[in-house]
């Protein structure tokens, strides 16, 4: 289900991923088969989203898709734990992953929703991945931004990723993997599925 043009290029992506600043990251467009991803997006219409609201963030989120009763979403989660998907992620990132463990949620950001800067470090998370399911423009906000660091703190935005349908963004989680989702401005919703792979 990962598009063949990407599957066969995992080794090429490895050096890009590791060299990219401010910490290992990569963005790939047209990542999954487009029709397949459209069906995943449509399936989310039947999934329940809960309003999450704190000082750090505000958005809608599903429960972990491990508990989804929608067959397409369960199958998607299974695929992300398949040898094909895990081998690709391991080759691209150079990280050995737990082949049985994944946390995966869909998120929906509407006007004013945001996620302030954090590092994603929790448990043994090693890779953070997003696949975007809606198209936003620069002016719509909702961008994933990666910060460089000064000492142990985030400093300046170095990478800014605008959500586009079937755009895949991956970064390595570490002490300085500082990132945020900028506030969504206006009526275009930001729909995405995000997941974490864990240390082997």
């Amino acid at each position, binding site marked *: 289900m990962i598009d063949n043009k990407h599957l066969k290029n995992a080794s090429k992506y490895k050096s890009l991923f590791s060299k990219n600043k401010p910490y290992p990251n990569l963005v790939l467009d047209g990542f999954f088969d487009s029709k397949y991803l459209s069906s995943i997006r449509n399936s989310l219409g039947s999934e329940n989203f809960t309003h999450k609201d704190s*000082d750090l963030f505000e958005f809608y989120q599903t429960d972990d898709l491990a508990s989804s009763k929608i067959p397409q979403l369960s199958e998607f989660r299974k695929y992300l734990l398949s040898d094909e998907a895990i081998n690709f992620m391991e080759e691209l990132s150079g990280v050995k992953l737990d082949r049985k463990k994944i946390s995966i949620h869909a998120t929906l950001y509407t006007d*004013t929703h945001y996620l302030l800067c954090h590092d994603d470090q929790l448990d043994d998370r090693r890779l953070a991945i997003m696949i975007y399911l809606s198209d936003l423009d620069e002016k719509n906000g909702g961008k994933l931004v990666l910060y460089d660091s000064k000492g142990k703190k985030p*400093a300046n935005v170095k990478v800014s990723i605008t959500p586009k349908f079937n755009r895949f963004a991956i970064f390595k989680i570490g002490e300085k993997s*500082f990132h945020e989702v900028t506030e969504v*401005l206006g009526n275009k919703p930001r729909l995405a599925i995000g997941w974490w792979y864990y240390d082997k």
Partner: protein
Amino acid sequence: MTSKNSIINQHYSTQISAIKKALSSENVVQLQEFFDKEFYYTLLSQARKSKLKQDVDIFEYRYKSGKISLPKEFEDFIKKITGKKFKYQIIELEHKDYSLIHDKKAEIAIDLTENWLNGWGGYLMYNDGSGNVTKIPSKQNSLTISNGKIFGAIKYVNNHSGKNKKLYIIGR
């Protein structure tokens, strides 16, 4: 209503025990129409004239801040309730500003903002650490006191705020 020459609403200066009791059981209290109107507008004018500097620690806060001192009568009132002395600063928040949860520390917040909608963010929020969140509605001339048993934060100010600014005096 204020007693002669008092800067504090008499209703509150005569209800110290009740306020202490409420603070003890609720961990946070908001006292509305707290200052005498004349003093409130003097304080507002003083705050607006203060020199503010951009203050950012991405992991903790983003706002403008400046120095301010408060009358002894106010400090005495606060000490009677909390048993503590606080250091005060002016905080001005606009679109994209926030203050994230920090240490469990007693805190004072005087709201100096007119015509602010809660939907714009910028309101005080307190978390007991178990996921129970108390949101304090934005209210001009209110005093909010937290007792240090909960975590305090100021909600991210969103794009609906336009060019409006939220003004607090915060004591920590």
